[in-house]
């Protein structure tokens, strides 16, 4: 056991750091640093910048464009990304549909879709959840009925993140209502320009518009857009959920956020002649989160190491989802605490780039409460934290 980086790994870190500092678009980093919202164009440019360096898809197999990095190199890369305020990769194409396509898709599908995902030419979104089916995907109702060389899709998907930008959607649809609920589900790729698709925004409690409802009204989808076998969609999706979980720990981002919080807390008065950073109560709360995060960082590294020796991420990755989201939520809560009264002002224009509205109170405070409200979602989506506990109970503890 050894936690030191080798000389080679240190060189790798330096080259990553150099790339982010000198080659990657600095205006995007600046926006992230200031907390303002990124446009679709920003997110696409970010991805293309990574792709141009060959670093777009660290988790893909090398043959499709992956980097072939070791867990330690991935760890270094994630840390450097967070450190440089490079936004996280939009996951729907890169981390969600792509692994399904390269694992279960046909040769034609791989050739058609993967390069555009890698180079961020096509924006994907996810069509899993439905108004009646949250974490319980087996109960979904969107139907795809075979009609010649097409499926006719009818139904409603919801909580589709950034669906407003999407050109394609990957969906779980019910192709066979007569078999066991899990067995009648298939995995379809659908062009969002197809007739009969309507996207309606859903406003979230923080005031933002990030998620959508997507309605399918007699939408005709070519049979060639089916991934893998009909009726196997549930099996594919489960694999995808495991992928989603490993990414979701978000250790590097949380470390970076804690660093920011410390910097901010060092300049905020505590009302007792000291700064919040010198305030024992605030420090204790911060230390509690930091200790959890230091632990999770190693839980993550241990899981990565186990993957390298033992194969696919196991049910233990549910820990990463649960603890990772709890920590993200706790950090946003500390930003609210640090804001004091200035948690109250609601100034959504501060999220717009180029807004020249003067901040009310300290600069960071406008973002504190909305972020806190927004990240409550993280313990709900991707299989709620309760579902994750069910998974661990069953698969790890054998209960």
């Amino acid at each position, binding site marked *: 056991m050894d936690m030191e980086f080798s000389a080679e790994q240190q060189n790798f870190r330096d080259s990553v750091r150099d790339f982010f500092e000198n080659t990657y678009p600095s205006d995007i980093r600046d926006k992230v640093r200031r907390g303002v919202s990124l446009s679709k164009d920003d997110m696409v440019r970010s991805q293309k910048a990574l792709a141009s360096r060959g670093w777009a898809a660290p988790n893909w197999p090398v043959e499709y464009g992956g980097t072939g990095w070791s867990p330690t190199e991935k760890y270094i890369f994630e840390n450097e990304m967070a450190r440089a305020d490079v936004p996280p990769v939009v996951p729907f194409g890169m981390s969600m549909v792509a692994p399904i396509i390269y694992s279960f898709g046909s040769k034609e599908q791989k050739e058609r879709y993967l390069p555009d995902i890698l180079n961020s030419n096509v924006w994907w979104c996810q069509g899993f959840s439905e108004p009646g*089916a949250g974490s319980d995907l087996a109960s979904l109702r969107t139907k795809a009925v075979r009609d010649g060389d097409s499926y006719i899709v009818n139904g409603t998907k919801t909580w589709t993140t950034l669906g407003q930008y999407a050109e394609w959607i990957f969906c779980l649809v019910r192709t066979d209502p007569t078999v066991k609920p899990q067995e009648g589900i298939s995995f379809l790729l659908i062009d969002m320009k197809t007739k009969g698709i309507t996207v309606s925004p*859903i406003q*979230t*409690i923080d005031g933002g518009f990030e998620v959508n409802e997507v309605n399918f009204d007699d939408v005709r989808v070519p049979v060639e857009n089916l991934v893998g076998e009909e009726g196997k969609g549930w099996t594919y999706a489960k694999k995808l959920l495991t992928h989603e979980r490993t990414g979701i720990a978000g250790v590097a981002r949380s470390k970076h956020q804690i660093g920011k919080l410390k910097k901010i807390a060092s300049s905020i008065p505590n009302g007792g002649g000291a700064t919040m950073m010198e305030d024992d109560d605030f420090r204790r709360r911060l230390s509690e989160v930091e200790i959890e995060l230091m632990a999770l960082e190693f839980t993550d590294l241990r899981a990565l190491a186990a993957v390298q020796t033992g194969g696919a991420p196991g049910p233990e990755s549910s820990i990463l989802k649960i603890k990772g989201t709890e920590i993200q939520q706790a950090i946003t809560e500390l930003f609210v605490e640090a804001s004091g009264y200035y*948690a*109250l002002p609601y100034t959504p224009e501060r999220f717009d780039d180029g807004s020249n509205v003067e901040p009310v109170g*300290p600069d960071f405070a406008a973002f504190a409460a909305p972020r806190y409200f927004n990240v409550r979602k993280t313990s*709900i989506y991707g299989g709620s934290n309760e579902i994750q506990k069910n998974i661990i109970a069953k698969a790890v503890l054998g209960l």
Partner: protein
Amino acid sequence: MDFAFTEEQELLRDSVQRFVRENYPFDKRNKLAETEAGFSSENWAMFAELGWLALPFSEVDGGLDGTVIDTMIMMEEFGKGLTLEPYFPTVVLGGGAMRRAASPAQREAVLPGVIEGTTHLALAYAEEQGRYNLADVATTARADGDGFVLNGRKSVVLNGTAADWLIVSARTAGKQGDAEGVSLFLIDSSTKGIDRRGYRTQDGGRAAEVTLEDVRVSGDALMGEAGAGLAVLEAVIDEAIVAIAAEAVGAMTALNAATVEYSKTRVQFGTPIGKFQALQHRMVEMFMETEQTKSLLYRAAMSMDSGRPDAARCVSALKVQTGKAGRFVGQQAVQIHGGMGMTYELNVGHYFKRLTMINSLFGNIDYHMRRFAALDGTTEAA
């Protein structure tokens, strides 16, 4: 000892409940929050008509001599309805300062309008550098002839834009942080040198940053004795904490009911989620935390109405518990509602936001935990 409400109190509760039922369907409430003013002046007129705006004031001032418990009842029901009218800043905060420190002339000038519903108040006491410390006042009021000149900045003044009168804490003596030397001033909000930058708050309310630049007031503007304003502020804010804690209890009660109801109808894995034991136990914990908050609410309100020496300590205990319970109940209500809990269109997230803001007002959990410990010894042995 007596835990029963009087008949008048039951009637008051009924009447607020009726108002909320008839005037606050949630979609209407959300539209109201988007308007310029952020509340309904028709509702406000109704408040006046029903005598609610007169409730805590003394009969001499045209009021109804209501108790802390009366206000508590009202605020609890307001909390259930997520009402937007600025009863709290005008009547509880502003009115609380007026009741305690205003001269007869000041009362005459202001209170009739408050009671009739034509006058709004705001208490401008917080400052950025002071966080929750009421004594950390950097705003100055320099004596000038027989008047004063005020300079400074006041933070997050609730109802600051609508207010006709501002009650401003400013230092007439002493250093920033001193207990002595803080004075209160009653100032017409249109006075020259006052700048108000209004904004919405996260919970649908309205507040303002208030800047005072060479604001010249007459000696009559001083409320109570010069330099003795801190004790007044503390008493006003203790009473205000009971009021918003009551609002929080109302919000938690509504959230618990909504969550239990939702859990009975929402089916996952072929079963209503309310049948899952882990969620059942969590809803039981939400219920228990709400009951415990209600107990401290009653305790603090009664203690205050009886003028007991442990009142301030009970208030700090209440604020701690309200913060903890509000966070837990709010977060779990959203969690159990799943994606629906995250939507703007459902009321659940809005209760959660209001509970979060209540924790941020008047001192958070840590602040009141320390105050509670510091006030040890004031609790009478039973």
